[in-house]
């Protein structure tokens, strides 16, 4: 049995963990002081040795990313923290920054020092005002205490940190779109290469990392690479936050070594809500192919989830029981991708539009002959041809759901999802459905 390992989540239940004095009392900023006494190269090597991989979805090794920065040329280089957290199902970075913003700020200071950046940015989505307040205050307090600013703790190292609020656009979580947005433009992805490490913010060398990745750094500095690798699997080292949501008895944040299984997590979470059983789930957010009860024992690490045909993504475990229409679920995710497609490339812009039309038909029981084949076809045309990973992600749930639950899509030729799976049975509160207006649940997102 794998046990939970509260590290990033450790302080969240404390009285006022977001305050500087609480953070310092618990040993906060010790990692920064320790780091400032080490060489930059040693710190990069430490993070390489820890095996830490990006927690924002792609799982790219963090230390290696830092190591890709070209040698200093005297000009600026930047750290940009991706705090846009908008992938459906993903809900770990926001509670982290609300409860323990200094953990992120300390990680920012250490990372900036390690990569030789003197100006770091935290790009947070604009739809979480209180979290933005907490970050603004944490940064201001860290300056006042000498953890940021000029000559930090007498080390000679200077660092400015700007917390920047976005304005509502999922695509701005894609790292190059984020950089364009941070430069005051429409958030559209850039052609890669050049990668941000070479030409990122203001065309200067830039590291973009997820909140959870950066927040993992202070403990690695304090505990060492061996401490970190004492958790997790050989190639998916360390701890991560697993976010359980949906039809589980105790939804919430479970911090555990990578490689824990959904079966283990569900056991801790009191199982699927009473009287129901697991139907399907996402291992890593809505952009990852769905799983079923067959996958309960897949170790939730990068390799195993990949080998089982999906992606670990952001460990956003959205759980749905047997009352749920998979067509309705997939149709709604597709609305999201169609809405959030930035429009830059044709396969995604046009493809998501057509996918949405077809899925609406199927959801309303008005599917046409050949619709399922068309869905799969369009997905094939987007996958690998889209300019960025949003397009690929849009196809994941569709392709996997058609494979696993084809009969439900076929039923959509004649029967509305709301008849086959009355929505009130899936809801977490009781209500009397008003079905007269004709498939009320299907009437949305017209």
């Amino acid at each position: 049995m794998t046990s939970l390992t509260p590290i990033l989540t450790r302080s969240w239940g404390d009285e006022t963990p977001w305050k500087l004095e609480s953070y310092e009392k618990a040993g906060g900023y010790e990692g920064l002081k320790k780091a400032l006494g080490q060489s930059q190269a040693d710190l990069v090597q430490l993070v390489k040795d820890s095996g830490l991989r990006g927690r924002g979805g792609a799982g790219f090794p963090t230390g290696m990313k830092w190591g890709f920065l070209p040698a200093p040329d005297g000009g600026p280089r930047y750290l940009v923290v991706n705090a846009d957290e908008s992938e459906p199902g993903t809900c770990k970075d926001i509670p982290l920054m609300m409860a323990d913003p200094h953990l992120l700020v300390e990680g920012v200071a250490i990372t900036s020092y390690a990569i030789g950046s003197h100006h770091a940015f935290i790009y947070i989505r604009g739809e979480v005002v209180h979290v933005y307040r907490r970050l603004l205050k944490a940064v201001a307090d860290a300056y006042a205490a000498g953890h940021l600013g000029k000559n930090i703790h007498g080390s000679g190292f200077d660092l400015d940190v700007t917390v920047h609020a976005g304005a509502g656009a999922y695509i701005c979580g894609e790292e190059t779109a984020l950089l364009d947005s941070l430069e005051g433009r429409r958030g559209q992805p850039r052609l890669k290469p050049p990668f941000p490490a070479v030409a990122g913010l203001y065309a200067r060398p830039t590291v973009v990392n997820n909140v959870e990745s950066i927040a993992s750094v202070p403990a690695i500095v304090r505990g060492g690479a061996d401490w970190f690798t004492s958790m997790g699997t050989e190639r998916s080292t360390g701890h991560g936050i697993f976010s359980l949501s949906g039809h589980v008895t105790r939804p919430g944040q479970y911090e555990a070594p990578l490689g824990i299984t959904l079966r283990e997590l569900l056991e801790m979470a009191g199982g699927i809500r009473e009287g129901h059983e697991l139907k399907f789930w996402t291992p890593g957010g809505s952009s990852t192919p769905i799983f079923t009860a067959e996958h309960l024992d897949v170790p939730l690490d990068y390799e195993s989830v990949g080998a089982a045909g999906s992606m670990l993504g952001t460990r956003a475990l959205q759980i749905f029981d047997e009352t749920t229409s998979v067509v309705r679920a997939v149709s709604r995710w597709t609305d999201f991708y169609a809405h959030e497609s930035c429009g830059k490339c044709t396969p995604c812009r046009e493809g998501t539009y057509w996918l949405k039309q077809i899925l609406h038909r199927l959801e309303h029981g008005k599917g046409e002959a050949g619709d399922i084949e068309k869905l799969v076809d369009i997905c094939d045309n987007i996958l690998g041809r889209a300019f960025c990973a949003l397009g690929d992600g849009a196809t994941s749930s569709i392709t996997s759901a058609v494979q696993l639950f084809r009969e439900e899509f076929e039923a959509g030729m004649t029967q509305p999802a709301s008849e086959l799976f009355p929505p009130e049975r899936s809801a977490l509160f009781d209500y009397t459905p008003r079905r007269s207006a004709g498939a009320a649940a299907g009437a949305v997102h017209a």
Partner: protein
Amino acid sequence: MTTTGYAPEVRARLDADAADIVSRYPQARSALLPLLHLVQSEDGYVSRHGIEFCAETLGLTTASVSAVATFYTQYKRRPNGEYTVGVCTNTLCAIMGGDEIFERLSERLGVGHDETTEDGRITLERVECNAACDFAPVMMINWEFFDNQTADSALEVVDRLIAGEDVTPTRGPEKVVSFKEMSRVLAGFDDGRADEGVAAGGASLVGLEIARDHGWTAPSYDAAEREAAASAAASADAAPGVGEEHSSADRPAGSDADVETEEKR
């Protein structure tokens, strides 16, 4: 050079704020998003004057400012209500009951998605996943969290807004501030409310509580302690019992403060 339609004293105030915003960035254009939030804090939407103001401040054309403003859903092209009531209808929340909540609020307010009540008080929106899925179904009012909603609880909150009362989010400040006040925060101006409200909601703490109940902690930073714990675990051949002494990182998960917070919920 003040060619925008703002009164001189308003323009002077905006100019001072804009200078503060621009100073946060190595390149001025990066200030555009916060400047647009600032415009909304003045006008309640991205007004014509506001676009001119941004363009003048940053030396851009009004067309390029507009092109940016229209890209982002938080920038409003029409005057927004004093409160934006957003119901998450992304898949997970929708299925947990968000669709029903939206329908009921829409009936009560007599407006649909992205529409504002006649008195200009409330704008209703369907919103996308707001990173709170473990609290589904979720409602956001001026982007503060109202977690674990039912149709009735959401209606109750909205009725209070209609009646002109203040409302308190589950995770957030003591009261939801107005759309304009919120926009000023998003422009990066602290409103002094950061210390209000809880550290975390119930769902955020679930794993922590389970760990505490089982006596589970993260491995010690100390290698010797780690090894001792590993061999103890191996010889015990089972998960440690509740409350068993364990080596831990220097900040134990289960402090008195945890218990207090738990009791308060």
